């Protein structure tokens, strides 16, 4: 039952980023702990959430550029990390993140194809309006939202199903030396996010003075 609940929740969270509302339930710092709570391990969720939030802190959805999807990564990584072994626990969390992040990029590519496809609705709507079918505006919107949610949910479902089998298997192949240093490295990761945050908050100023009335 759990994978289904996580996928559906994940689908809802992911669509918040672009399609619906933008109330930021898509941010890792929110969706990580919530997924963790659902699975009964909020601490792991919050660790994943915070690390991901920091890494993605300066990623801005710019105009028509689609940033790598942090929500997909945070949700799936939390699900997989919760099941991790007790020994070198943080090492497993980091390991899962490193494997899942490329999937976030893959999801981004899918999203771009989807957004290309969406112009279909514009053209269809034009025809429908000519026929006086005003209801199609609502219909198109709701259908599109459903596609956004479903797409993300299915992607997360497949990802966690695959990851569930693959990650422990791959991790088992690593030597204990590597596991130990992965475990230690986990605590270095926030520095990447914090460094990124510093760079976003520092601006270069124009030398010519600006005059405001």
């Amino acid at each position, binding site marked *: 039952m759990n994978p289904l609940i996580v996928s559906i929740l994940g689908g809802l969270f992911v669509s918040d980023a*672009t*399609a*619906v*509302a*933008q*109330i*930021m339930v898509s*941010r890792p*710092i*929110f969706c990580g*702990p*919530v997924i963790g709570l659902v699975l009964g391990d*909020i*601490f792991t969720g*919050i660790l994943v959430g915070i690390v991901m939030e*920091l890494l*993605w802190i*300066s*990623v*801005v959805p710019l*105009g*028509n550029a689609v940033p*790598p999807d942090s929500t997909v990564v945070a949700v799936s990584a939390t699900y997989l990390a919760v099941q991790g072994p007790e020994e070198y626990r943080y090492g497993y969390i*980091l390991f899962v993140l*490193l494997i899942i*992040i490329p999937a976030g990029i893959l999801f981004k590519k899918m999203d771009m194809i989807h*957004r290309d496809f*969406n112009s279909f*609705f*514009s053209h269809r*709507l034009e025809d429908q309006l000519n026929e*006086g079918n*005003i209801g199609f*505006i*609502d219909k*198109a*919107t709701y259908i*599109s939202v459903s596609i*956004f949610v479903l797409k993300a949910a299915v992607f997360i479902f497949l990802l966690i199903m695959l990851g569930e089998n693959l990650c422990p298997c791959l991790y088992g192949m690593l030597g204990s030396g*590597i596991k*130990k*240093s*992965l475990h*230690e490295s986990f605590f*270095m*990761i*926030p*520095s*990447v996010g*914090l*460094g*990124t*945050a*510093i*760079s*976003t*908050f*520092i*601006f270069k100023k124009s030398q010519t003075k600006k005059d*405001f009335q």
Partner: protein
Amino acid sequence: MSKRVKIGAREKKTLMRIFWRSFLLQAVWSYERMQNIGFLFSILPKLKELYGNDIDRLKESCRRHLGYFNTHPYMASFILGHVARCEERIAAGEPGVVEEVNRFKLQMAGPLAATGDKYFWSVFRPLVGLIGVLLFLLGVQPYYLIPLIFILLYNLPTYRHRYKMLVYGYYKKEKMSELMKNAKVHVSLSIMPFAGLLTVLACVVLFSLELGAVRGPVFAGVTVLVAMLRKYLRISATRLLYIVVLISIIGGLIF
């Protein structure tokens, strides 16, 4: 507040419906026309109020809003409010308003998007996210408080902003430039990054203290190094993550 134009309960209800529907502004986002359907979806209650069963005029007015439109989702409500008011004038038969609406939509979208992106995406949201991280480092318990505080801290001001912008746009007592000046956008844009930097510093210090005498300074050092690499070489955060992990693992294996 006293100078407000009297409006009926019906108009107010429509305005609320526009507000709620504007949450789906980006539902049919496409590369070709971006938020066009979302805009039409949001403004539809007004058009229906004005034209009701006159299907031909309704059709005609819908078609006018099918063109390209894109702005920041939180700022769109200002444009929606103003366009809703203009639609009333169009319905009353005032000439030239159609062109005014089209120009207004195109002209305002860009600058509003720039302000919104800067203000919400690259300053306010990172700041609130960092506050969440800081709460965790300060040992706030139980843990579910952290996402809860994050979501409330972020949404209360933005929700209020979205609603306010719609009302401002509808009544439009003052010019947008005056509004931006009075809202002191520039003042907050100078203060918030500063607050953000302080939060980052607090996080770095707390992390370093947590990590102890050896790993702590390394952590602080890596943070500064990453900041410089990001700023001057513009290496993406994802790539930096893999580089840092790789070096860290090798380091861990050696020592």
